[in-house]
């Protein structure tokens, strides 16, 4: 009965409630009245690539130095950067130059994260937010004022974005911990600059430790 066994498998699923999908309709309330319930979202993977942020140092200085490496590496050509010299009296970023114009066109962005890898100062990183359904081109092109984190180091929550708890966590340049530049001993050491907001995240444990923990 090997051929017909499959039919039993499918028909047996009817009574079961082990749903792998969740109630989801883009942030709206899906049950009114007694159980006023918002959409469930499944937990996002640790390395999900979402909308970008431009980070600040712990003292509030911008990290971006306007080097345009992100724009150069972008395969979709969606990033536009222009740098300018810092005002010595009132610098925007530590060092000589800062990002004067910074735009990302989300109609083009493929969320490959190459810009994050290219950035020498961990200025640009990605959050876990992927639900930002803009309705016009103006909203789709994020400018520096929208990308930059606010004075407390949290990403700005724009009206058309659906932010939930924890989606701005772990946005820092964590991948440096797993990219030890060829030095095996570097593994497990946080090698990135300090950050305003959630601070620097602890590096991922090495492969052998994770295997030992059974993850």
């Amino acid at each position, binding site marked *: 009965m090997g051929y017909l066994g*499959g*039919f039993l*498998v*499918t*028909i047996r*699923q*009817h009574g*079961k409630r*082990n*749903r*792998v*999908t969740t*109630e989801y*309709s883009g942030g709206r309330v*899906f049950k009114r009245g007694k159980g006023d319930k918002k959409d469930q979202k499944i937990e996002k993977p640790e390395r999900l690539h979402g909308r970008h942020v431009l980070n600040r140092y712990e003292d509030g200085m911008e990290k971006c130095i306007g080097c345009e490496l992100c724009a150069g590496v972008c395969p979709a050509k969606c990033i536009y950067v222009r740098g300018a010299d810092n005002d010595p009296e009132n610098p925007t970023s530590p060092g000589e130059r800062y990002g004067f114009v910074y735009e990302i066109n989300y109609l083009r962005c493929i969320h490959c994260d190459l810009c994050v890898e290219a950035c020498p100062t961990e200025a640009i990183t990605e959050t876990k937010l992927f639900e930002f359904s803009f309705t016009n081109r103006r909203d789709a092109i994020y400018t520096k004022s929208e990308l930059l984190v606010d004075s407390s180091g949290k990403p700005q929550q724009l009206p058309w974005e659906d932010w939930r708890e924890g989606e701005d966590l772990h946005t820092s340049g964590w991948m440096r911990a797993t990219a030890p530049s060829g030095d095996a001993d570097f593994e497990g050491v946080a090698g990135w600059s300090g950050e305003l907001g959630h601070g620097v995240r602890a590096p991922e444990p090495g492969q052998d430790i994770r295997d030992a923990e059974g993850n």
Partner: protein
Amino acid sequence: MIISLDPLLTEDFTATVIAIVLLKVLVIFVVGLVATMLMVWFERKTIAGMQNRVGPNKAGPFGLLQTLADGIKLFFKEDLLPVKADKFVFRFAPYLSFVPAFLAFAVIPVGGDFRGDTGGIVTWFGHATRVQLADPPVGFLFALAISSIAVYGIMLAGWSSGSKYPLLGSVRASAQMISYEAALALSFGAVVLVAGTMSTSGIVNVQETLGDWHVVATGFVPFVIFLMAATAELNRPPFDLVEAEQELVGGFNTEYSSIRFALFFLAEFMNTITMSAVIVTLFFGGPQPIRIGDTALDIPLIPNDLEGTVWLLGKVLVFLYVYVWLRGTLPRLRYDQLMNLGWKLLIPTSLGWFMLLAAQNVGQDRGWNTGVVTAVSIAVILICVMIVQAALKVSAANREREGSVF
């Protein structure tokens, strides 16, 4: 075969007669559309259950209005016309696919009380009539012809798109239809042989008791073949090579958008309902109740005139579920597997079974010994199977020697 003609149309054509016919047309069209809408919902919901998903549940209660929402959305979408398309045929093809889906329903008896001597004839507004739009003496030939016209819609849609993948899809469609139409018609022939009539109401009329149902009377095999061939004819999984997304983008309807796409979609689901009704009428007694011997099952609280419709509805629902079940369970066949199944298994088997039934019938007419007839038939079938096997082996060996052409 004058008996099977609709008594309504043998009278004078008065205004009432025309009104009744128009009413039937209207009811079939409206019920067909609503049923299609519900079928799409039913399929999505059932298959979601089989795949541990939730399925549509936002639009209306239990997501019932999801199809309506989709339809409205499609209606207001931009209608694209490819530059390379043959414009007239491109616009015409959806209708060629949509209209036959409804036409075939015209000959299906959708109700009436077949238990007494009336033979399913009811009286509406003082006119005796059948609960079906038309009852030509060649009823099922008509249904068969209409179901093969539907392939023109798919073929022309793919061809007129002026694009590679739709063309491949439509070429597949035509080849598949030709291959499976033969098996379909041969297993249908077995039913005609037993029933002795081609009229749909006649076929329903002879299936009085459970033993007379053609699924039993023709010996089950024609039913199985008909079910498989009908699935292939409908381009439903596991035979949906025509719109194999992984290979052909979207198949024949890749270039279609907006309401024209909706028409193809609608036609596909309407065809499923029609084909289920055809199977029920051919093999499961249509509006006949379940009857063993002289005791017929009677549904309480429902007047006898409506009971036939309820029975038909219930039986059709079972087959609609079976189609969804097939889709939820079986992976798509490879193209050569599809052709092998059609030509090497279904057609010879249905032809052999048809011959067997014919021999039995002739034997009964001439008063030959049934046992001898059966023994000779089985011997002949065995010889035929061996010859076919030998032929397959020889051709396989030849292919081996010549080497693969691909």
